[in-house]
């Protein structure tokens, strides 16, 4: 890499480029597709720049305005940040390529999709790099608002209803988080995470704000029983939007839960156990609901509810073997982003082709769309945690951590959840291999929509192979 390229402020560019792209796509609605796709590549390039900077130089910091904490705002890119940035870059590029083909028949939607998606991407990149609890609130707002608008883009009654519910939940979550921020500033006189970690002394002064913030974030993550808004929103959105919401947006609030947890390291057994139990409930409830769904996209959406539950199993397991449990949870989050993104993209392709997404009317879809079905199956493998996928690595780490501590009940939950996942994935595949009694009209599906889903699903599987290189990046982040 030439020196001037290496000297560019990639952390800033990863936020500024998508913002500029959003503005450009908004003022040039007729060229929104071209502008949007170009800026997607540039954004992903900037994210890769941050990752390379981290690998060559170690954790990066950028004091916005030159003031530094506590007066100014600091941006930080550590191992956890760059994993999330990289995840957003890969899923983002795949969804962008897919969306360019997907929105060709909807010339009135495309000029709206691109600015909103680029705003969302800017918010994600800003969120993953921020080290300031108030600035994180602002990024949460930008992320929530653009995500809601993306759901409403569908325009149908159920989508608007889902978007409204999503908006209210999102605002409530933000409000709870903001109350926590205000209390933290009241007690410690700063909103910088590093300084807060130094000054926080436990007790009620820390417990109440932290509880408010985490409760708000759980609402935004959609952890059982706060998940009720998730299936209508994710299930009724346009396919590329669903992929972004399930793949990336819920991960952002989960990332923030982890960030707060790693910063303040709450003491006590009760809260981790509660989070683990909610996670276990989410796995069962989400999987059972997924099995009962008639529509493919709702099945995939309920599967998100279930898979989000897994991420929280790490909390009760982190006592003795924190490294292993946290690595497992983070790796599951990454591979779920890839797999669920691929699954929603595949569902969108199937819906475009047949004009519907009734599961028992899939009608030999394997003959017509082998690539898409392969994508769905590969993504399913990663979700179910079969080797050698990324999902396998994540679940294996959790399992090993549970066994090492003799907490067999958690191991059992992980395994049973995997079986349930495999069941609903195979239910879809089964109908895809059988002929339906009804005849359905068929539409051409652009090739780009098929192979982006497939590549993303392959990525979810390949994540299993890169684990030995990816997991050490987390050294120094985990408590």
């Amino acid at each position: 890499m030439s020196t001037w390229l290496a000297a560019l402020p990639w952390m800033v560019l990863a936020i500024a480029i998508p913002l500029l792209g959003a503005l450009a796509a908004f003022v040039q609605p007729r060229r929104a597709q071209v502008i949007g796709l170009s800026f997607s590549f540039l954004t992903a390039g900037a994210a890769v720049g941050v990752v390379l900077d981290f690998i060559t130089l170690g954790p990066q910091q950028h004091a916005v305005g030159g003031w530094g904490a506590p007066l100014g705002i600091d941006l930080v890119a550590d191992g956890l940040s760059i994993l999330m940035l990289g995840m957003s870059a890969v899923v983002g590029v795949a969804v962008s390529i897919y969306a360019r083909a997907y929105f060709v028949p909807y010339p009135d939607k495309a000029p709206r999709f691109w600015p909103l998606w680029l705003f969302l991407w800017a918010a994600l990149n800003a969120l993953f790099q921020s080290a300031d609890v108030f600035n994180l609130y602002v990024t949460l707002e930008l992320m929530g608002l653009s995500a809601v608008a993306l759901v409403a883009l569908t325009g149908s009654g159920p989508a608007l209803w889902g978007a409204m519910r999503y908006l209210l939940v999102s605002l409530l979550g933000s409000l709870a988080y903001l109350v926590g921020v205000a209390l933290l500033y009241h007690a410690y006189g700063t909103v910088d995470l590093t300084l807060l970690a130094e000054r926080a002394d436990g007790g009620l002064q820390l417990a109440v704000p932290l509880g408010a913030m985490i409760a708000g974030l759980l609402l935004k993550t959609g952890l059982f029983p706060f998940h009720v808004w998730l299936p209508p929103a994710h299930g009724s959105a346009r396919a590329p939007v669903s992929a972004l919401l399930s793949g990336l947006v819920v991960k952002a609030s989960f990332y923030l839960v982890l960030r707060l947890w790693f910063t303040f390291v709450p003491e006590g057994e009760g809260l981790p156990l509660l989070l683990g139990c909610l996670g276990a409930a989410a796995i069962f409830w989400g999987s059972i609901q997924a099995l009962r769904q008639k529509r493919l996209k709702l099945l995939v959406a309920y599967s998100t509810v279930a898979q989000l539950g897994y991420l929280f199993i790490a909390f009760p397991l982190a006592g003795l073997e924190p490294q292993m449990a946290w690595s497992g949870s983070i790796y599951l989050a990454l591979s779920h982003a890839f797999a669920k993104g691929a699954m929603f993209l595949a569902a969108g392709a199937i819906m475009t082709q047949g004009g519907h997404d009734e599961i028992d009317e899939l009608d030999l879809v394997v003959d017509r769309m082998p690539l898409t079905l392969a994508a769905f199956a590969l993504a399913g493998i990663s979700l179910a945690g079969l080797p050698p996928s990324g999902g396998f690595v994540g679940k294996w780490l959790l399992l090993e951590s549970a066994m090492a501590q003799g907490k067999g009940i958690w191991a059992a939950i992980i395994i049973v959840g995997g079986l349930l996942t495999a069941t609903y994935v195979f239910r879809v595949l089964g109908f895809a291999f059988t002929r339906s009694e009804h005849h359905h009209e068929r539409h051409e599906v652009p090739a780009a929509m098929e192979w982006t889903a497939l590549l993303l699903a392959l990525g979810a599987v390949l994540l299993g192979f890169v684990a030995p290189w990816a997991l050490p990046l987390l050294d120094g982040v985990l408590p």
Partner: protein
Amino acid sequence: MSSASRPPGEPGLLLRAVLALLLLAAAAGVALALVAGQVAPGLSGAVAAALPDSGASNPVTAVLLNFRGYDTLLEMAVLTAAVVGVWSLGPAPRIRETEPSPVLLGMNSVLIPLAPLICAYLLWAGSSRPGGAFQAGAVLAAAGVLFIISGRRPAVHLPAAPMSWGIVAGLGVFLAVALAVMPGGRELLEYPRGLAGALILLVETAATVSIALILAGLFIGGRPEDEP
């Protein structure tokens, strides 16, 4: 009231009681956290110390546009995204306004020209006393709303292009300034010494125009008709 007669969609008594208890618990928690322990000195000392270098003598403006200007930049993105979201819902509803009475027209001819004046005043005052882009933009937007609902407007038929350029101006100029100061080893938004005051005024002026258009655009409630 019995549960049978309550309107559909309204939560039942049990749910209400649970929600009320949760809210009470949350309020009690917040109150306890406020009372318990010490109150840390905030950042007002640090702000006062750095104020001479900030380019604004009003500490609030210095925080919003300089020390924590990055927050404000992202907030401008939030406002812009809100308009994009509203435009995505559909074209602006056609509302046939009632023919305005002569009283209204007479009042408008006084109030509407006053608004830009007050807007400029608030914008200018912002650097040294309470005021600033948001307040100024809101006053201007209110004048726009007055104009729209008075029935003498083709505001919805305003061509989309100037409106959308005006909407993005605030975030665009802010971002351009934030990035343009970087060459020469400065950080994002690190205004060069001596130029801070002028750059802040430039950013605030663009933001005022955008905020006014954004708020008025939210009132209109949809995209202009010639927008695809």
